[in-house]
């Protein structure tokens, strides 16, 4: 019980800080935008962590799911539809369908092959988006307005948008956590450890992995809707493989073994990136080595940091 409290202390603290952020002097301008972006990417990272840490599926095409969500907003916006009750289901369904269709092929492979196939599908989505001349092509598309909630303009409000992002992030976390603990998740986790063992007791891992991949796609699609709304602009760069790499990195930085690690990883990634960008133009020169050091020395990622520090203190 005590370890359980200790384990959930850090994520709860971070979520509480995010909830309090608007009243801690972050209420204005770019800081709120930055936090919203971090929370949205955290949501996508959580969905990636769900299939990576939970099912062992290392996807390098996860940004495409984000892109499907974002482009669903664009295409509906172009058609004059901005109502969330329509936009959200369409976006989630589009992203989940893309995940199921590509996953049906990709999940038949494993290891490096899986990584390469998801990368290939991701790039297909990227080039398709770039060629959508009607929706801005390479240059991207500026939304006419943010998605409306039951006809209201609530999401235009900075504070409402902040809490919408936070709420969805918490929901994604809870959903993935519930799934991993369920019968379904147990088969996934077992198949990650040993596919042979799972088959020997009578499960074919394939349908379980495919459904998990579809669910992760749906969550990332929802994150895509929020991302489009955050910037009121969508471009193919949202889907580029570098973005998939970023997501993968957030998950690894946060700790593959825990879902909330993805939240920590995403926040750290976005905030450090921004901070370094203010210090120097050549921030990538510092950011890259920082990330490498983090991976080398943070066993269990940021999520494992408290335990690592406590362990060091107890030993020392």
């Amino acid at each position, binding site marked *: 019980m005590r370890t359980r409290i200790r384990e959930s202390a850090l994520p709860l603290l971070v979520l509480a800080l995010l909830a309090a952020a608007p009243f801690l002097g972050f209420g204005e301008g770019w800081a709120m935008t930055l936090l919203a972006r971090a929370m949205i990417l955290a949501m996508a990272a959580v969905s990636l962590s769900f299939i990576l840490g939970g099912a062992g599926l290392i996807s390098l095409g996860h940004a495409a799911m984000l892109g499907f969500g974002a482009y669903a907003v664009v295409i509906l916006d172009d058609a004059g539809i901005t109502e969330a009750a329509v936009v959200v289901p369409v976006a989630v369904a589009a992203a989940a369908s893309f995940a199921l269709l590509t996953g049906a092929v990709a999940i038949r492979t494993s290891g490096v092959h899986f990584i390469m196939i998801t990368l290939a599908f991701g790039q297909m989505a990227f080039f398709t988006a770039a060629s959508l001349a009607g929706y801005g092509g390479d240059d991207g598309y500026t939304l006419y307005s943010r998605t409306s909630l039951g006809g209201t303009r609530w999401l235009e409000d900075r504070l409402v948008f902040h809490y919408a992002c936070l709420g969805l992030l918490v929901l994604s976390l809870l959903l993935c956590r519930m*799934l991993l603990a*369920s019968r379904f998740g147990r*088969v996934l986790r077992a198949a990650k*450890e040993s596919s042979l063992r799972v*088959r*020997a*007791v*009578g499960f*074919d891992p394939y349908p379980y992995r495919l459904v998990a991949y579809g669910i992760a796609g749906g969550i990332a699609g929802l994150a895509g809707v929020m991302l489009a709304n955050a910037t009121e602009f969508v471009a193919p760069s949202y889907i580029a493989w570098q973005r998939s790499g970023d997501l993968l990195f957030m998950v690894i930085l946060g700790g593959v073994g825990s879902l909330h690690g993805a939240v920590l990883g995403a926040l750290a990634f976005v905030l450090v990136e921004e901070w370094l960008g203010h210090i120097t133009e050549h921030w990538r020169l510092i950011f890259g080595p920082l990330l490498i050091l983090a991976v080398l020395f943070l066993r269990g990622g940021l999520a494992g940091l408290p335990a690592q520090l406590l362990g060091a203190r107890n030993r020392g």
Partner: protein
Amino acid sequence: MAEPILELAGLQKRFGGLAVTEDVSLRVAPGGIHAIIGPNGAGKTTLIHQISGTLRPDAGRILFGGRDVTALPLQRRARLGLARSFQITCILPGFTVLENAALAVQARSGSSFRFFRPAASETALNRQAMSALEQVGLAGRATTPAGALSHGEKRQLELAIALAMQPRLLLLDEALAGAGPEETERLVTILRGLKGAYTILLVEHDMQAVFALADRISVLVYGRVIATGEPDAIRGNPEVRAAYLGEDDA
């Protein structure tokens, strides 16, 4: 002979030019322990793989409970009640001992496309998993991560997982492999305790254990079954002595 639970008819398997399973026909009657022995390179492991479904034979048929399962993959045969243990321990090291067994119970307890309730809180699964652990004497280690078990305990867990499937046939591939003398003794006692309750097909290297446990023994040499019979008959069979037992005497 009663209707066999498992029947192999003319199984053949080659790897390139090497015929590992030349021509194996075998009937395993329900109840009791049937052992397959044979010197190194006799093709025991290849045969087990074909029976369990991890390898597809080039020719021949496998009937399980009267049903042709030759084309079915491992997981389908497992669902039909064919449980196997692995020569190289195959457990889930990150799962607790109980959860290892609970997964096997779950496989035969309705759909696993259930997304809401935590699996760990399903008492029906846990209870049956626990009873499988009790059968092999691992109940006291239920909450230990499986990766932290000793080698012998891992072999016991391997067995418990198979038992948790409530199989119609238990296929044990070198269940004693790598176990020390004390661990072997414990495992043999456990297996003896299972006798009668399960039909067991035992592929084993340890001759002492085989003769202590088996009701029937088949001898596999160079991919062929050269003799099948009761332990005494096998021990006295000159062909078997020449092909196999003789090596130990020399």
